[in-house]
Protein backbone atom coordinates (compact mmCIF):
# COMPACT_ATOMS: atom_id res chain seq x y z
CA UNK A 1 0.00 0.00 0.00
CA UNK A 2 2.36 2.72 1.22
CA UNK A 3 5.58 2.81 -0.78
CA UNK A 4 8.45 5.15 0.04
CA UNK A 5 11.42 5.16 -2.33
CA UNK A 6 14.69 7.01 -1.95
CA UNK A 7 13.22 9.62 0.36
CA UNK A 8 15.78 12.31 1.12
CA UNK A 9 15.00 15.33 3.26
CA UNK A 10 17.41 18.19 3.81
CA UNK A 11 16.72 21.33 5.83
CA UNK A 12 20.17 22.75 5.31
CA UNK A 13 23.13 21.44 3.31
CA UNK A 14 23.28 18.05 5.03
CA UNK A 15 20.34 15.66 4.56
CA UNK A 16 18.45 14.58 7.69
CA UNK A 17 17.14 11.53 5.88
CA UNK A 18 19.12 9.92 3.11
CA UNK A 19 17.44 7.51 0.72
CA UNK A 20 14.73 5.95 2.82
CA UNK A 21 12.94 2.91 1.32
CA UNK A 22 9.93 1.65 3.21
CA UNK A 23 6.85 -0.44 2.39
CA UNK A 24 3.70 -1.00 4.38
CA UNK A 25 1.41 -3.73 3.04
CA UNK A 26 -2.37 -3.48 3.12
CA UNK A 27 -3.61 -4.30 6.61
CA UNK A 28 -0.09 -4.22 8.01
CA UNK A 29 0.92 -2.38 11.15
CA UNK A 30 4.46 -1.06 10.66
CA UNK A 31 6.51 0.86 13.20
CA UNK A 32 9.46 3.07 12.66
CA UNK A 33 11.80 3.36 15.63
CA UNK A 34 14.95 5.38 15.97
CA UNK A 35 16.88 7.72 18.21
CA UNK A 36 15.48 11.22 18.73
CA UNK A 37 16.62 13.60 16.05
CA UNK A 38 16.93 10.81 13.51
CA UNK A 39 14.19 12.31 11.35
CA UNK A 40 11.34 9.92 12.16
CA UNK A 41 8.82 12.72 12.19
CA UNK A 42 10.16 14.12 8.90
CA UNK A 43 9.27 10.84 7.20
CA UNK A 44 5.66 11.11 8.31
CA UNK A 45 5.50 14.79 7.39
CA UNK A 46 6.79 13.96 3.92
CA UNK A 47 4.19 11.20 3.59
CA UNK A 48 1.33 13.57 4.49
CA UNK A 49 2.64 16.31 2.24
CA UNK A 50 3.30 18.74 5.08
CA UNK A 51 6.91 18.67 3.95
CA UNK A 52 8.29 18.52 0.43
CA UNK A 53 11.16 16.01 0.19
CA UNK A 54 14.42 16.98 -1.52
CA UNK A 55 14.44 13.70 -3.44
CA UNK A 56 12.43 10.55 -3.58
CA UNK A 57 8.87 9.39 -4.03
CA UNK A 58 5.96 8.64 -1.77
CA UNK A 59 3.08 6.56 -3.07
CA UNK A 60 0.25 6.46 -0.55
CA UNK A 61 -1.53 3.64 -2.35
CA UNK A 62 -4.84 5.28 -1.41
CA UNK A 63 -6.48 8.63 -2.05
CA UNK A 64 -5.17 11.41 0.20
CA UNK A 65 -8.64 11.63 1.75
CA UNK A 66 -8.23 8.08 3.06
CA UNK A 67 -5.17 8.96 5.13
CA UNK A 68 -5.52 9.79 8.81
CA UNK A 69 -2.74 11.51 10.75
CA UNK A 70 -2.51 11.38 14.52
CA UNK A 71 -0.07 13.96 15.86
CA UNK A 72 2.22 13.87 18.83
CA UNK A 73 0.51 16.86 20.42
CA UNK A 74 -3.23 17.10 20.73
CA UNK A 75 -3.75 20.32 18.80
CA UNK A 76 -7.52 20.60 19.05
CA UNK A 77 -9.23 23.84 18.05
CA UNK A 78 -9.54 25.61 21.42
CA UNK A 79 -12.63 27.56 20.33
CA UNK A 80 -14.54 24.46 19.31
CA UNK A 81 -16.35 22.04 21.60
CA UNK A 82 -15.51 18.35 21.76
CA UNK A 83 -18.33 17.56 19.33
CA UNK A 84 -17.28 20.30 16.91
CA UNK A 85 -13.68 19.12 17.01
CA UNK A 86 -14.71 15.56 16.21
CA UNK A 87 -16.92 16.69 13.33
CA UNK A 88 -14.21 19.01 11.97
CA UNK A 89 -12.92 16.64 9.28
CA UNK A 90 -16.45 15.63 8.32
CA UNK A 91 -17.54 19.26 8.03
CA UNK A 92 -14.49 20.05 5.90
CA UNK A 93 -15.55 17.22 3.59
CA UNK A 94 -19.01 18.67 3.26
CA UNK A 95 -20.90 16.05 5.27
CA UNK A 96 -24.32 17.41 6.30
CA UNK A 97 -24.30 18.73 9.91
CA UNK A 98 -26.84 16.19 11.22
CA UNK A 99 -25.04 13.25 9.63
CA UNK A 100 -21.69 14.54 10.91
CA UNK A 101 -23.08 14.97 14.42
CA UNK A 102 -24.51 11.45 14.36
CA UNK A 103 -21.22 9.93 13.20
CA UNK A 104 -19.30 11.94 15.78
CA UNK A 105 -21.64 10.83 18.55
CA UNK A 106 -20.95 7.19 17.73
CA UNK A 107 -17.22 7.73 18.02
CA UNK A 108 -17.56 9.82 21.18
CA UNK A 109 -19.46 6.97 22.82
CA UNK A 110 -16.96 4.36 21.56
CA UNK A 111 -14.04 6.33 22.95
CA UNK A 112 -15.66 6.95 26.32
CA UNK A 113 -16.28 10.65 25.77
CA UNK A 114 -20.08 10.57 26.14
CA UNK A 115 -21.26 13.46 28.30
CA UNK A 116 -18.28 15.65 27.36
CA UNK A 117 -19.68 16.71 23.96
CA UNK A 118 -20.15 20.36 24.87
CA UNK A 119 -16.89 20.83 26.77
CA UNK A 120 -14.04 22.89 25.38
CA UNK A 121 -10.54 21.38 25.05
CA UNK A 122 -9.15 23.29 28.02
CA UNK A 123 -11.75 21.61 30.24
CA UNK A 124 -10.42 18.16 29.37
CA UNK A 125 -7.58 16.05 30.78
CA UNK A 126 -4.64 15.10 28.57
CA UNK A 127 -6.04 11.61 28.02
CA UNK A 128 -9.47 12.97 27.10
CA UNK A 129 -7.94 15.41 24.62
CA UNK A 130 -6.05 12.55 23.03
CA UNK A 131 -9.28 10.57 22.75
CA UNK A 132 -10.95 13.52 21.02
CA UNK A 133 -8.02 13.70 18.59
CA UNK A 134 -8.36 9.96 17.90
CA UNK A 135 -12.12 10.28 17.37
CA UNK A 136 -11.50 13.22 15.03
CA UNK A 137 -9.24 11.10 12.84
CA UNK A 138 -11.16 7.79 13.03
CA UNK A 139 -14.48 9.52 12.24
CA UNK A 140 -13.15 9.98 8.72
CA UNK A 141 -12.70 6.20 8.44
CA UNK A 142 -9.13 6.36 7.11
CA UNK A 143 -7.64 3.31 5.39
CA UNK A 144 -4.10 4.35 6.11
CA UNK A 145 -3.33 5.67 9.58
CA UNK A 146 -0.12 7.56 10.29
CA UNK A 147 0.82 8.16 13.91
CA UNK A 148 3.63 10.26 15.33
CA UNK A 149 4.28 9.17 18.92
CA UNK A 150 0.60 9.70 19.63
CA UNK A 151 0.77 8.76 23.31
CA UNK A 152 4.13 10.29 24.22
CA UNK A 153 2.64 13.01 26.43
CA UNK A 154 0.35 10.72 28.45
CA UNK A 155 0.97 9.12 31.82
CA UNK A 156 1.68 5.38 31.91
CA UNK A 157 -1.78 4.18 32.92
CA UNK A 158 -3.71 6.26 30.38
CA UNK A 159 -1.15 5.35 27.77
CA UNK A 160 -1.58 1.64 28.37
CA UNK A 161 -5.36 1.88 28.21
CA UNK A 162 -5.37 3.92 25.00
CA UNK A 163 -2.82 1.63 23.37
CA UNK A 164 -5.06 -1.33 24.13
CA UNK A 165 -8.10 0.47 22.68
CA UNK A 166 -6.20 1.52 19.60
CA UNK A 167 -5.05 -2.05 19.08
CA UNK A 168 -8.67 -3.20 19.15
CA UNK A 169 -9.74 -0.56 16.61
CA UNK A 170 -6.88 -1.25 14.26
CA UNK A 171 -7.51 -4.99 14.28
CA UNK A 172 -11.27 -4.66 13.93
CA UNK A 173 -11.05 -2.21 11.02
CA UNK A 174 -8.04 -3.90 9.39
CA UNK A 175 -6.30 -0.54 9.20
CA UNK A 176 -2.95 -0.09 7.56
CA UNK A 177 -0.74 1.78 10.00
CA UNK A 178 2.65 3.44 10.09
CA UNK A 179 3.62 4.37 13.64
CA UNK A 180 6.62 6.47 14.54
CA UNK A 181 7.86 5.96 18.08
CA UNK A 182 10.97 5.83 20.23
CA UNK A 183 9.32 3.31 22.51
CA UNK A 184 10.63 -0.10 21.38
CA UNK A 185 8.22 -2.09 23.53
CA UNK A 186 5.27 -0.18 22.12
CA UNK A 187 6.55 -0.83 18.60
CA UNK A 188 6.79 -4.61 19.18
CA UNK A 189 3.46 -4.82 20.99
CA UNK A 190 1.55 -3.16 18.19
CA UNK A 191 3.34 -3.97 14.94
CA UNK A 192 3.69 -6.65 12.32
CA UNK A 193 7.01 -5.14 11.25
CA UNK A 194 9.49 -2.82 12.95
CA UNK A 195 11.84 -0.61 10.93
CA UNK A 196 14.92 0.78 12.64
CA UNK A 197 16.24 4.15 11.61
CA UNK A 198 19.93 4.92 12.11
CA UNK A 199 21.21 7.94 14.02
CA UNK A 200 20.95 11.11 11.92
CA UNK A 201 22.03 13.15 10.10
CA UNK A 202 21.92 11.11 6.88
CA UNK A 203 19.66 8.60 8.61
CA UNK A 204 18.77 5.45 6.71
CA UNK A 205 16.74 2.33 7.43
CA UNK A 206 19.22 0.13 9.25
CA UNK A 207 17.07 -2.96 9.75
CA UNK A 208 13.57 -4.35 9.36
CA UNK A 209 12.19 -7.05 11.66
CA UNK A 210 8.93 -8.98 11.38
CA UNK A 211 7.08 -9.40 14.69
CA UNK A 212 5.98 -13.05 15.03
CA UNK A 213 3.38 -12.50 17.73
CA UNK A 214 -0.10 -13.80 16.75
CA UNK A 215 -3.16 -11.51 16.49
CA UNK A 216 -5.51 -10.55 17.96
CA UNK A 217 -3.14 -9.08 20.50
CA UNK A 218 -3.40 -7.57 23.93
CA UNK A 219 -0.77 -5.27 25.36
CA UNK A 220 0.19 -7.37 28.39
CA UNK A 221 -0.14 -10.76 26.70
CA UNK A 222 2.06 -9.58 23.83
CA UNK A 223 4.77 -8.57 26.24
CA UNK A 224 4.68 -12.03 27.79
CA UNK A 225 5.01 -13.70 24.38
CA UNK A 226 8.24 -15.72 23.93
CA UNK A 227 9.15 -13.73 20.82
CA UNK A 228 9.01 -10.41 22.65
CA UNK A 229 12.26 -10.38 24.67
CA UNK A 230 14.60 -11.62 21.90
CA UNK A 231 13.18 -9.07 19.46
CA UNK A 232 13.56 -6.29 22.00
CA UNK A 233 17.24 -7.24 22.41
CA UNK A 234 17.72 -7.24 18.64
CA UNK A 235 16.24 -3.75 18.37
CA UNK A 236 18.46 -2.50 21.19
CA UNK A 237 21.48 -3.87 19.39
CA UNK A 238 20.39 -2.23 16.14
CA UNK A 239 20.17 1.11 17.85
CA UNK A 240 23.62 0.94 19.41
Amino acid sequence: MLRIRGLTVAYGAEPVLDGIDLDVQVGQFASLVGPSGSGKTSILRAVTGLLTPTHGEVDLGVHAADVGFLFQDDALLPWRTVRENVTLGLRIRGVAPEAAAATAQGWLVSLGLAGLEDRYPRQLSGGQRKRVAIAQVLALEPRLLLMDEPFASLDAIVRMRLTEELLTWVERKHLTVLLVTHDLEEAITLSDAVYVLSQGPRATIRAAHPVPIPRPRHVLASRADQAFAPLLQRLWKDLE
Partner: protein
Amino acid sequence: MTARPGTRRTAAFLLLAAAWETAARAGWIDPFYAPAPSRVASVLVSLFVQGDIWRHLEATLVSAFAGLLAGVALGMLLGFAAALLPGVAELLEPVMILLNAIPRVILAPLFVIWLGIGLASKIALALILVAVLIFFAVYSGIKEVDRRLVERVRTLGGGRRALIQEVYLPSIAAWVLGNLKIAVGFAFTGAVVGEFVASTRGLGYLLQFAQSTYNAALTLALIVLIMACALVLFALAERLERRLLRWRYV
Protein backbone atom coordinates in the same frame (compact mmCIF):
# COMPACT_ATOMS: atom_id res chain seq x y z
CA MET B 1 -11.28 35.67 57.40
CA THR B 2 -10.24 38.15 54.74
CA ALA B 3 -12.54 40.61 53.01
CA ARG B 4 -13.04 40.42 49.24
CA PRO B 5 -10.62 42.59 47.22
CA GLY B 6 -13.55 44.75 45.99
CA THR B 7 -14.62 45.48 49.54
CA ARG B 8 -11.09 46.33 50.62
CA ARG B 9 -10.64 48.64 47.64
CA THR B 10 -13.90 50.44 48.37
CA ALA B 11 -12.87 50.81 52.02
CA ALA B 12 -9.49 52.26 51.00
CA PHE B 13 -11.18 54.70 48.62
CA LEU B 14 -13.67 55.84 51.28
CA LEU B 15 -10.86 56.29 53.81
CA LEU B 16 -8.95 58.50 51.40
CA ALA B 17 -12.07 60.56 50.63
CA ALA B 18 -12.79 60.94 54.35
CA ALA B 19 -9.21 62.11 55.04
CA TRP B 20 -9.43 64.58 52.18
CA GLU B 21 -12.80 65.87 53.41
CA THR B 22 -11.48 66.30 56.95
CA ALA B 23 -8.36 68.09 55.74
CA ALA B 24 -10.45 70.44 53.58
CA ARG B 25 -12.92 71.26 56.36
CA ALA B 26 -10.16 71.82 58.88
CA GLY B 27 -8.57 74.27 56.48
CA TRP B 28 -5.34 72.29 56.10
CA ILE B 29 -5.59 72.40 52.32
CA ASP B 30 -6.66 75.26 50.08
CA PRO B 31 -10.13 74.55 48.62
CA PHE B 32 -9.18 76.64 45.58
CA TYR B 33 -6.72 73.94 44.56
CA ALA B 34 -8.22 70.88 46.22
CA PRO B 35 -11.92 71.33 46.97
CA ALA B 36 -13.47 68.84 49.40
CA PRO B 37 -15.00 65.67 47.96
CA SER B 38 -18.44 66.85 49.11
CA ARG B 39 -17.99 70.03 47.06
CA VAL B 40 -16.93 68.00 43.99
CA ALA B 41 -19.93 65.71 44.47
CA SER B 42 -22.35 68.62 44.64
CA VAL B 43 -20.89 70.09 41.42
CA LEU B 44 -21.32 66.71 39.80
CA VAL B 45 -24.93 66.47 40.93
CA SER B 46 -25.69 69.99 39.74
CA LEU B 47 -24.29 69.15 36.31
CA PHE B 48 -26.93 66.46 35.96
CA VAL B 49 -29.69 68.53 37.63
CA GLN B 50 -29.14 71.38 35.17
CA GLY B 51 -29.21 68.74 32.43
CA ASP B 52 -26.64 70.50 30.26
CA ILE B 53 -24.20 67.60 30.80
CA TRP B 54 -26.23 65.20 28.64
CA ARG B 55 -25.38 66.80 25.31
CA HIS B 56 -21.69 66.82 26.28
CA LEU B 57 -21.80 63.18 27.34
CA GLU B 58 -23.56 62.31 24.12
CA ALA B 59 -20.94 64.07 21.98
CA THR B 60 -18.06 62.28 23.72
CA LEU B 61 -19.69 58.84 23.65
CA VAL B 62 -20.73 59.18 19.99
CA SER B 63 -17.17 60.18 19.00
CA ALA B 64 -15.65 57.39 21.09
CA PHE B 65 -17.98 54.67 19.76
CA ALA B 66 -17.77 55.78 16.14
CA GLY B 67 -13.97 55.95 16.42
CA LEU B 68 -13.86 52.56 18.14
CA LEU B 69 -15.98 50.80 15.49
CA ALA B 70 -14.25 52.45 12.55
CA GLY B 71 -10.83 51.90 14.14
CA VAL B 72 -11.45 48.20 14.77
CA ALA B 73 -12.77 47.78 11.21
CA LEU B 74 -9.87 49.66 9.63
CA GLY B 75 -7.26 47.99 11.84
CA MET B 76 -8.58 44.53 10.98
CA LEU B 77 -8.76 45.31 7.27
CA LEU B 78 -5.20 46.65 7.15
CA GLY B 79 -3.90 43.90 9.43
CA PHE B 80 -5.45 41.26 7.19
CA ALA B 81 -4.13 42.90 4.04
CA ALA B 82 -0.61 43.24 5.45
CA ALA B 83 -0.53 39.64 6.67
CA LEU B 84 -1.75 38.20 3.38
CA LEU B 85 -0.12 40.54 0.84
CA PRO B 86 3.63 41.10 1.32
CA GLY B 87 3.51 44.28 -0.80
CA VAL B 88 0.98 45.87 1.51
CA ALA B 89 3.04 44.84 4.54
CA GLU B 90 6.12 46.58 3.15
CA LEU B 91 4.12 49.73 2.64
CA LEU B 92 2.19 49.69 5.92
CA GLU B 93 4.63 48.30 8.46
CA PRO B 94 6.98 51.33 8.67
CA VAL B 95 4.03 53.74 8.86
CA MET B 96 2.36 51.68 11.57
CA ILE B 97 5.57 51.26 13.55
CA LEU B 98 6.06 55.03 13.44
CA LEU B 99 2.45 55.70 14.44
CA ASN B 100 2.80 53.15 17.23
CA ALA B 101 5.99 54.76 18.55
CA ILE B 102 4.67 58.31 18.81
CA PRO B 103 1.97 59.55 21.19
CA ARG B 104 -0.74 59.59 18.54
CA VAL B 105 -2.72 62.35 20.29
CA ILE B 106 -0.23 64.85 18.80
CA LEU B 107 -2.20 64.40 15.58
CA ALA B 108 -5.20 66.11 17.16
CA PRO B 109 -4.40 69.66 15.92
CA LEU B 110 -3.90 68.31 12.41
CA PHE B 111 -7.32 66.63 12.44
CA VAL B 112 -8.90 69.91 13.60
CA ILE B 113 -7.28 71.73 10.67
CA TRP B 114 -8.39 69.04 8.23
CA LEU B 115 -11.82 68.18 9.58
CA GLY B 116 -12.93 71.19 11.60
CA ILE B 117 -13.93 71.42 15.25
CA GLY B 118 -16.99 69.16 14.88
CA LEU B 119 -17.31 65.47 15.79
CA ALA B 120 -15.34 64.34 12.73
CA SER B 121 -11.95 65.40 14.09
CA LYS B 122 -12.64 63.58 17.42
CA ILE B 123 -13.76 60.45 15.63
CA ALA B 124 -10.61 60.58 13.49
CA LEU B 125 -8.38 60.82 16.58
CA ALA B 126 -10.16 57.93 18.34
CA LEU B 127 -9.97 55.96 15.08
CA ILE B 128 -6.23 56.38 14.61
CA LEU B 129 -5.55 55.46 18.26
CA VAL B 130 -7.60 52.27 17.95
CA ALA B 131 -6.69 51.29 14.38
CA VAL B 132 -2.93 51.08 15.05
CA LEU B 133 -3.52 48.89 18.11
CA ILE B 134 -5.87 46.53 16.24
CA PHE B 135 -3.60 46.48 13.19
CA PHE B 136 -0.75 45.01 15.22
CA ALA B 137 -3.06 42.57 17.02
CA VAL B 138 -4.31 41.17 13.70
CA TYR B 139 -1.07 41.44 11.73
CA SER B 140 1.20 39.76 14.24
CA GLY B 141 -1.68 37.49 15.23
CA ILE B 142 -1.99 36.00 11.75
CA LYS B 143 1.76 35.64 11.44
CA GLU B 144 1.95 33.83 14.78
CA VAL B 145 -1.09 31.61 14.32
CA ASP B 146 -0.64 28.17 15.90
CA ARG B 147 1.06 26.09 13.17
CA ARG B 148 -0.15 22.86 14.74
CA LEU B 149 -3.77 23.92 14.19
CA VAL B 150 -3.03 24.81 10.58
CA GLU B 151 -1.42 21.41 10.02
CA ARG B 152 -4.24 19.60 11.75
CA VAL B 153 -6.86 21.24 9.53
CA ARG B 154 -4.75 20.54 6.46
CA THR B 155 -4.23 16.85 7.27
CA LEU B 156 -8.00 16.57 7.78
CA GLY B 157 -8.35 17.71 4.19
CA GLY B 158 -8.99 21.41 4.77
CA GLY B 159 -8.08 23.99 2.13
CA ARG B 160 -7.81 27.77 2.25
CA ARG B 161 -11.46 28.28 3.09
CA ALA B 162 -11.46 25.79 5.97
CA LEU B 163 -8.24 27.33 7.31
CA ILE B 164 -9.71 30.84 7.30
CA GLN B 165 -12.99 29.71 8.82
CA GLU B 166 -11.67 27.25 11.40
CA VAL B 167 -8.29 28.73 12.35
CA TYR B 168 -7.62 32.26 11.16
CA LEU B 169 -10.93 33.99 11.87
CA PRO B 170 -11.34 32.53 15.38
CA SER B 171 -7.69 33.37 16.16
CA ILE B 172 -8.15 36.94 14.97
CA ALA B 173 -11.39 37.27 16.91
CA ALA B 174 -9.50 36.17 20.02
CA TRP B 175 -6.73 38.73 19.50
CA VAL B 176 -9.08 41.59 18.67
CA LEU B 177 -11.37 40.84 21.61
CA GLY B 178 -8.36 40.41 23.86
CA ASN B 179 -7.39 43.97 22.95
CA LEU B 180 -10.93 45.33 23.15
CA LYS B 181 -10.59 46.77 26.66
CA ILE B 182 -7.46 48.66 25.68
CA ALA B 183 -9.17 49.79 22.46
CA VAL B 184 -12.15 51.15 24.40
CA GLY B 185 -9.79 53.13 26.61
CA PHE B 186 -7.96 54.46 23.55
CA ALA B 187 -11.22 55.46 21.83
CA PHE B 188 -12.34 57.35 24.92
CA THR B 189 -8.95 59.04 25.21
CA GLY B 190 -9.11 60.06 21.55
CA ALA B 191 -12.56 61.57 21.92
CA VAL B 192 -11.77 63.53 25.11
CA VAL B 193 -8.37 64.78 23.97
CA GLY B 194 -9.87 65.80 20.61
CA GLU B 195 -12.49 67.84 22.42
CA PHE B 196 -9.88 69.31 24.72
CA VAL B 197 -7.96 70.67 21.74
CA ALA B 198 -10.84 72.36 19.94
CA SER B 199 -14.59 71.83 20.17
CA THR B 200 -17.93 73.26 21.23
CA ARG B 201 -19.29 70.17 22.96
CA GLY B 202 -18.18 67.14 24.95
CA LEU B 203 -16.55 66.24 28.27
CA GLY B 204 -13.18 67.34 26.94
CA TYR B 205 -14.65 70.72 26.03
CA LEU B 206 -16.10 71.11 29.54
CA LEU B 207 -12.77 70.10 31.01
CA GLN B 208 -11.00 72.71 28.93
CA PHE B 209 -13.58 75.29 30.05
CA ALA B 210 -13.14 74.33 33.72
CA GLN B 211 -9.39 74.63 33.41
CA SER B 212 -9.51 78.03 31.69
CA THR B 213 -11.74 79.39 34.48
CA TYR B 214 -9.54 77.84 37.23
CA ASN B 215 -12.54 75.88 38.47
CA ALA B 216 -10.88 72.99 40.35
CA ALA B 217 -14.20 71.64 41.66
CA LEU B 218 -15.65 71.35 38.15
CA THR B 219 -12.38 69.88 36.84
CA LEU B 220 -12.40 67.21 39.52
CA ALA B 221 -16.09 66.52 38.99
CA LEU B 222 -15.46 65.98 35.28
CA ILE B 223 -12.47 63.74 35.98
CA VAL B 224 -14.64 61.61 38.24
CA LEU B 225 -17.35 61.50 35.56
CA ILE B 226 -14.86 60.47 32.86
CA MET B 227 -13.43 57.78 35.12
CA ALA B 228 -16.95 56.47 35.77
CA CYS B 229 -17.67 56.37 32.02
CA ALA B 230 -14.42 54.55 31.34
CA LEU B 231 -15.14 51.99 34.06
CA VAL B 232 -18.62 51.30 32.66
CA LEU B 233 -17.22 50.91 29.13
CA PHE B 234 -14.46 48.61 30.44
CA ALA B 235 -17.02 46.43 32.19
CA LEU B 236 -19.10 46.23 29.00
CA ALA B 237 -16.05 45.34 26.92
CA GLU B 238 -15.09 42.67 29.43
CA ARG B 239 -18.57 41.13 29.37
CA LEU B 240 -18.51 41.07 25.58
CA GLU B 241 -15.08 39.46 25.58
CA ARG B 242 -16.12 36.82 28.09
CA ARG B 243 -19.27 36.03 26.15
CA LEU B 244 -17.60 35.75 22.74
CA LEU B 245 -14.47 34.01 24.01
CA ARG B 246 -16.38 31.62 26.25
CA TRP B 247 -13.94 28.80 25.41
CA ARG B 248 -11.19 30.76 27.12
CA TYR B 249 -13.02 31.36 30.37
CA VAL B 250 -14.89 28.07 30.95
